[in-house]
């Protein structure tokens, strides 16, 4: 696969994926609320267009630079995440030997982007959202680090391509049953969704997003959807074998398998965000530090024992 | 990109960090000065690793230790700041002058 195809595939996955997440969101909302779905296929585009045509606003004394750049930073991070994912068994757009560590950097910079978005507005609700998000976003990131290191153990490599190859016999989702569920929690946090939506939540009138209108808000929302795609592609790579397909397939079908697996993870992510209740932050912090973090560590130890020669 | 250029950039970072440490009143800003110095040290370490040792792994290990030192400095630094603040409501160096008197 040459570079041009890879770039094209990335962009396509990003645009189509964001739209797909929005469609999934609508289906899930309608199913849970027991109502007809309504305008399903065009609905996301219409909502996006209505944000694009409305007017940009200004808050009182914002930190102008970060106020302008935070949505773009979030979007760029989502793109970096997708660029790291190997589309086929032959490689990714950005193929570096420490790919999974770079994804960790994307995770931590996402916390920075959300914080900057809320802080720079210079208003109460966005600031509270940002502050709260950092408190929950950092420990859940630690959980994901343990989970990802566990996934890298059988591959004996930090490169995503090697991690995919190591799953040729058995996918990590089976080998490390704790991994994917814990990693999905991180996905909810990265995309500010449902049970981990501490930044842009209803009890803050939209949180970090509360003071936004117009095209920048469209970028922010698109970035949230794109981050969901990025995360799902990463989860599909690390736990579901990425572009590996059944034995009868050929290597050229790799991107197709990856897309299908990404869509499955996306559906799980969207379902969780509509079906699960969110706890107050202090309760969530207790859960994170006393249950989830030890659990992920147990998973890491188990993976280490399993991977030992 | 030569070793000389890398080391001069690192020296500039160390000089800036030293300025920060000496000039800032606030504890937290003072810690940022230390961090900047360690940033320069990290760059020097990796420069020597890259140009001076033909990639001996011990150089990278030293860089990891520098990072560990940064984390230690942050953790203990913030704990001390919190402890001092709890007792005196002070978060600047000038406020802590008990030893002078």
């Amino acid at each position, binding site marked *: 696969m040459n570079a041009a195809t890879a770039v094209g595939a990335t962009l396509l996955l990003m645009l189509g994926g964001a739209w797909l997440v929005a469609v999934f969101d609508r289906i*899930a*909302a*309608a199913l*849970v*609320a*027991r*109502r*007809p779905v*309504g*305008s399903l296929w*065009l*609905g996301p*585009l*219409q*909502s996006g*267009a*209505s944000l*694009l*045509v*409305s*007017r*940009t*606003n200004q808050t009182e004394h914002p930190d102008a630079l970060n106020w302008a750049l935070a949505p773009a930073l979030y979007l760029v991070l989502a793109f970096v995440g997708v660029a790291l994912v190997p589309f086929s068994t032959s490689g990714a757009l950005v193929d570096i030997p420490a790919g999974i560590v770079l994804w960790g950097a994307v995770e931590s910079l996402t916390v920075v982007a959300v914080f900057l978005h809320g802080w720079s507005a210079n208003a*109460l*609700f966005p600031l*509270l959202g940002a*502050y*709260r998000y950092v408190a929950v976003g950092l420990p859940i990131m630690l959980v994901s680090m343990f989970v990802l290191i566990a996934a890298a153990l059988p591959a004996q490599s930090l490169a995503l391509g090697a991690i995919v190859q190591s799953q040729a016999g058995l996918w990590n989702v089976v080998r490390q049953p704790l991994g994917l569920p814990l990693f999905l929690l991180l996905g909810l946090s990265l995309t500010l969704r*449902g*049970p981990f*939506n501490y930044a842009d*939540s*209803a*009890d*803050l*009138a*939209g949180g970090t*997003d*509360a*003071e*936004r*209108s*117009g*095209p920048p*808000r469209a970028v922010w929302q698109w970035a949230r959807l794109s981050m969901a795609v990025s995360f799902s592609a990463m989860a599909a790579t690390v736990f579901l074998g990425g572009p590996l397909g059944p034995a009868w397939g050929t290597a050229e079908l790799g991107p197709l398998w990856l897309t299908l697996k990404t869509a499955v993870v996306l559906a799980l992510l969207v379902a969780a*965000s*509509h*079906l*699960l*209740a*969110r*706890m*107050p*932050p*202090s*309760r969530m912090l207790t859960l994170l530090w006393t249950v989830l973090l030890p659990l992920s560590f147990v998973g890491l130890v188990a993976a280490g024992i399993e991977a030992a020669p | 990109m030569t070793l000389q250029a890398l080391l001069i950039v690192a020296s500039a970072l160390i000089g800036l960090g030293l300025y920060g440490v000496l000039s800032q009143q606030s504890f937290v800003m003072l810690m940022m000065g230390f961090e900047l110095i360690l940033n320069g040290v990290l760059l020097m370490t990796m420069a020597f690793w890259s140009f001076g040792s033909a990639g001996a792994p011990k150089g990278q290990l030293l860089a990891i230790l520098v990072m560990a030192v940064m984390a230690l400095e942050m953790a203990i630094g913030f704990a001390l700041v*919190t402890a001092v*603040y*709890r007792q005196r*409501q002070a978060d600047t160096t000038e406020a802590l002058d008990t030893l002078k008197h």
Partner: protein
Amino acid sequence: MAIAWPWLDRLAARAPVAIFVAVGRDAIERVEDLSLDARIAWVASPRHADVLLVAGRVRSEDAPALRAVHDQIPAPRKTLWWGSTPFQELVLPMVLPLADEASLPILSLHTRVSNSEPDWLPDVPPNPWRGLGPNGQGGKDMMGGVPYGRPMAMTDDDSRDGLQLDQTTVQIGPFLQTWPAGLVLELALQGDVVQHARVVHSPCGPTKGLREGVSSRLRSAARLLRLLELGSLAERCLRVAAAHDRCQPVELAALRAAVRRSGAFAALPAGLGACRLDGAPSDIRSRLLAWLGNDADPSKDATTEPKPKLSGLLTGLEWNEAWLVISSFTPQQLHGMAVPEKAPVKGDDNTTNSARSAMEHAH
């Protein structure tokens, strides 16, 4: 900045109309029914809205807040007065009685070609700049004062761990989604922990009697679920409530099971908002469970016991918990609980007492 391409406009015109609702007296149920319309989206922040809907009579003390909210809606903006009296100075306001359906007038208002409404407030800081003190904020030195109408953050005791960090004093309300209509609270926040709470204005009391039917209890449950980020489930509650209002048979057991499956009860900390209510101890979980139950109105003759004070229940809670507690009371229950309280004694420069004494101490 906005993008102007004709095809984008056509696409945008088919999106649901985003409304921000300033809920006044006795209008909340009408608004909730309106929000079930697929052509309308009830948004949480005025920054996200196209149309301001003023539903029900707005008290005179809430008028300044209403003006501020209106001016935060991005242009081009429109206002619909639904069962409320427009401000005197407005030219040709669009008025509709609360009994009429609002969805079609909102859709007709929402045309992007026409001009936007002008601001209702002059674009100046809410408090004039006082120019007092060395830094102009009106306090002493760098401390104190009320710059731009907001008290300066000052250190104060922390009820939780004793770390005396800065507190911000803010007024919350009266127009927020899932917030009791008309309630204005003054909160001293340290991070997101409420250190002091004071009721500034009580909520618009219910005038339709103190009846609590299945429908109104389900609506209360919907407000609580929305704060748990269960917006879709909250919508289902509202739909069931609306069906009940139309005298259709409703199945509450399935709804209750769905709420239980979502982990809502596990997510709510046990004992949060615990108080004696109507002669029995209750907390947030038991109240939510009772709302989703089938049994008749539990409040028989509830007037014998003094009601707990809302501000007392909020102190020491995190922001999210505080709002959950507020939403765990029906408007009827909240009626006697949130009585306006006097502001604490203030000094000449409006700093809090402890900050003032601390400064005098320092001099």
